[in-house]
């Protein structure tokens, strides 16, 4: 049996409140397994324990009870982070560094150097679409650009696991779409992605499996299509159907034991409309 990319067993995190007798239980007896190569979404409202769980996985916070492993290694060990890239929520990097300098700094932390670091820097700037802005200081970057350079630094040492905390928080729809496309592309290259989000529509688009946290407890978990499928309902989406044909289908349904719940015109999403309207506009 291969090691899970992330394995969490009986994880509990309790934060004591200074000068008070009570304490806050951020995560309660959490068991979770992320398989290699999948995109796993850790969902939940603010304060549900998502970020704490990610920080424990990364060794930034120590668990009160339980154990977390990355590819079979105790995640408290520094060497387990050789396999991990991390993008925190709303990252602030050193503003005085340019995009290129930022990647070189993080590369050196992973003991990359010389031509290898240079090539990797060029490759990642290209991947996240920041080649033209490579010499600009991060202080002048937009929110979406910061998020993309954050993603690039997370990938600098070619990790097998990418941990993303709210990767599209505060990013406009176009930037958000770019990040989602990048995640899908990374999955295609065999990289495991564990992401936390409270933006459900986005998670639905990219996640293979999701876990829903509420008050530090995992209340639902499974394959996305299984979790959201409605057992006794079927959808038909038909193009170029005449109203006669649709009426005929409806009467056929009415004659059977089935029940027509809704008949409506298909619509696009507001996001797609926004993206169509704001990208590739002809110059006036």
């Amino acid at each position, binding site marked *: 049996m291969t090691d899970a990319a992330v394995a969490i067993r009986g994880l509990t995190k309790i934060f004591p409140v200074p000068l008070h007798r009570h304490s806050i239980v951020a995560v309660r007896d959490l068991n979770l397994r992320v398989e290699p190569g999948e995109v796993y979404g850790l969902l939940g409202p603010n304060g549900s324990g998502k970020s704490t769980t990610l920080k424990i996985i990364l060794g*930034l916070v*120590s668990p009160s009870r339980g154990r977390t492993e990355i590819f079979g290694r105790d995640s408290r060990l*520094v060497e387990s982070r050789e396999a991990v890239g991390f993008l925190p929520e709303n990252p*602030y990097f*050193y503003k*005085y560094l340019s995009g290129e300098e930022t990647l070189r700094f993080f590369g*050196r*932390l992973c003991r990359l150097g010389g031509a290898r670091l240079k090539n990797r820097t060029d490759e990642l700037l290209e991947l996240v679409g920041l080649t033209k802005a490579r010499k600009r200081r991060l202080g002048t970057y937009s929110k979406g650009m910061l998020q993309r350079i954050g993603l690039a630094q997370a990938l600098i040492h070619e990790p097998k696991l990418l941990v993303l905390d709210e990767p599209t928080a505060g990013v406009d729809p176009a930037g958000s779409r770019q990040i989602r496309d990048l995640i899908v592309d990374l999955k295609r290259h065999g990289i495991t992605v564990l992401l936390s989000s409270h933006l459900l529509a986005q998670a639905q688009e990219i996640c293979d499996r999701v876990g829903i946290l509420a008050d530090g407890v995992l209340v639902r978990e499974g394959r996305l299509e299984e979790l959201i499928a409605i057992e006794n309902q079927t959808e038909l989406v038909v193009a170029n159907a005449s109203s006669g044909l649709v009426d005929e289908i409806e009467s056929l349904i009415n004659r059977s034991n089935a029940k027509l719940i809704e008949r409506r015109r298909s619509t696009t999403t507001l996001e797609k409309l926004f993206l169509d309207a704001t990208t590739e506009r002809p110059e006036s």
Partner: protein
Amino acid sequence: MSNETATSARHRVFSFARVCAITANTLTELTRLKVFYVLLLFALLLIGSSIFMAQFTFQQEFQILKDVSLGAMSIFTSLLAIVATAQLIPRDIEDRTVYTILAKPVPRLEYLLGKIAGVLLLLAISTLVMSAVFLAVLYMREQSVLHMTLRQMSAAPREQIDDALRAIRSSALNIDIFPGIIIIYLKACLLATLTLFVSTFATTNIFTVVVMVFIYFIGHLQATAREYWLHEHGSGWVTRVFLAIVALLFPDLQAFNLVDDIVAGAAISLGLFLKTALLGIFYTTIYTLLAAFVFYAKEL
């Protein structure tokens, strides 16, 4: 080879290259904070004071110049050490850059060593620049006094001129200035690492700076208080343990004050220099280790 084995083969428990990367970045960060304006202030102070001192005798002038310069160097490097170090770690935590750094295979000790090495490097550069300015001003004043004396004594016998020139040279630059400067630097290193230690558990920068200002003043008064205490309470083991704890929390900063002796023209013995230097290195090491200990267990 399995992936896991490959990973463990690549990882190094301690990497000098990682520490250097953080050191270089910290130095860049501090440089961009325009801390070098302090050096400009130092240069202006020296040039201004040397113009003012032209009215004194050369002995008085050189003495005041050394007193002002070494005193200003001590205060500026101490100030720089506290202010530059106080915000290093809290800012990284506030901006979450510490997450991205420690989520890489970087041990916390390396992160801390890289940060403090950046400050110590900045202090070394500042001390060198201030020393260069000081020595340049001192040399120029010495040359000016020598030329003036030669002009005034042109008719005097050769021996008398030589005696006068020797007196000028001996009261200007002397070799004891250099160990004095090294001790000033070590005192700044001690203060920087103590500030780092305080900042690992402090909640705000202001708290760190206020605590350090207190420690700075108490540290200068500590020796006097200790002598008084020993005089009043004898030197039993309880007293000794108590004083050792006080000495750890509030280092005897007065012990690093060799400037008065240098200015007075007294020679600093090798023994005194080595003892003071070792004390500085000891404190610097202890505070760095204490900072690492607290930071290791810190929840980020």
